[in-house]
């Protein structure tokens, strides 16, 4: 049975968007919990942060996999890096790579605090997830420009 390539690419795009929503929404959620009035210790946020880190890395893998699938849908018609669209794609890919690289120390810091009760305090957690949320917002802006700009 032949699968409609258009249907496959739409499905891949939906999975990509769902993974982005999970990663971005999760970062916003942890950040919102850390600034919630009455939150005065890292312990209150840490359990959610640890769960988020599991989800974040699953989403990162799915985003990389489906992101390449989205680019493959363009085939030979993919615009080059010298165009405005191509420059924006380079900026987006660079931002994603930077976020992935800088997310490992965040995960390790959260894992260490969870395992040993030493290390990251509430303010540090707040800053880590504020930075993650901001990075995702920038990547999302690039993605929207690439899709509709």
């Amino acid at each position, binding site marked *: 049975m032949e699968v409609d*390539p258009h249907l*496959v*690419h739409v499905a*891949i795009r939906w999975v990509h968007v769902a993974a982005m929503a999970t990663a971005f929404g999760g970062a916003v959620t942890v950040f919102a919990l850390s600034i919630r009035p009455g939150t005065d210790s890292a312990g209150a946020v840490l359990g959610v942060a*640890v769960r988020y*880190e*599991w989800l974040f*890395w*699953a989403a*990162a*893998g799915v*985003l*990389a*996999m*489906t992101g*390449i*699938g989205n*680019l*493959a*849908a*363009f*085939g*030979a*018609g*993919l615009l*080059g*890096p*010298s165009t405005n669209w*191509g420059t924006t*794609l*380079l900026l987006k*890919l*660079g931002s*994603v*790579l930077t976020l*992935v*690289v*800088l*997310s*490992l*120390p*965040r*995960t*390790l*810091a959260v*894992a*260490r605090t969870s*395992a*040993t009760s*030493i*290390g990251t305090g509430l303010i540090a957690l707040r800053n880590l997830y504020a930075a993650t949320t901001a990075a995702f917002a920038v990547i999302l802006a690039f993605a929207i420009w690439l899709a509709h700009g």
Partner: protein
Amino acid sequence: MKLVTWSLATFHATAFVLAIVLFVYSRDALGAGLSGLNTFVGLGLFVALWGTTYVTTSRALKGLDLLTSERDRTVYAGRALRCGAANGMAFLGILGAVAVVAAVLNTRPDQVGLGILFPAVFIAPIAFVVSAAVGGAVGALFGIVDLALFAVAGLAGLDAEPTV
């Protein structure tokens, strides 16, 4: 499954693929490269790389506690080259198996022996040596990057092991 293993393995697989995509696209060669790749094969290859990277990262971390032991982090960096080589060979094994099965299915039965299997037997040892060398180099590079990121995470110098 541990969070440290999961995050390190996924970090290695995604950063490796993203770096290659970024480099190839900056040379304006990505469109031509991806246009010849079947979507399901492409997705399957990424999952295969993710899987082999998870298994080899787990082996590199076996018996080590990166979060609390400076010595264990040094041992881990030392294992990175060996586990990277194993990952390169494991991924090539999957890639080769898929390629051989696809070629066999698309070849007349009387030509499978001389046309597919015989060349594959000769090419395989050379390909495994090259994949081990490339995997080992990538593994060693990630070992250095990981140590730097452990330091960024505030782990460097920390050692919660009891000093008796």
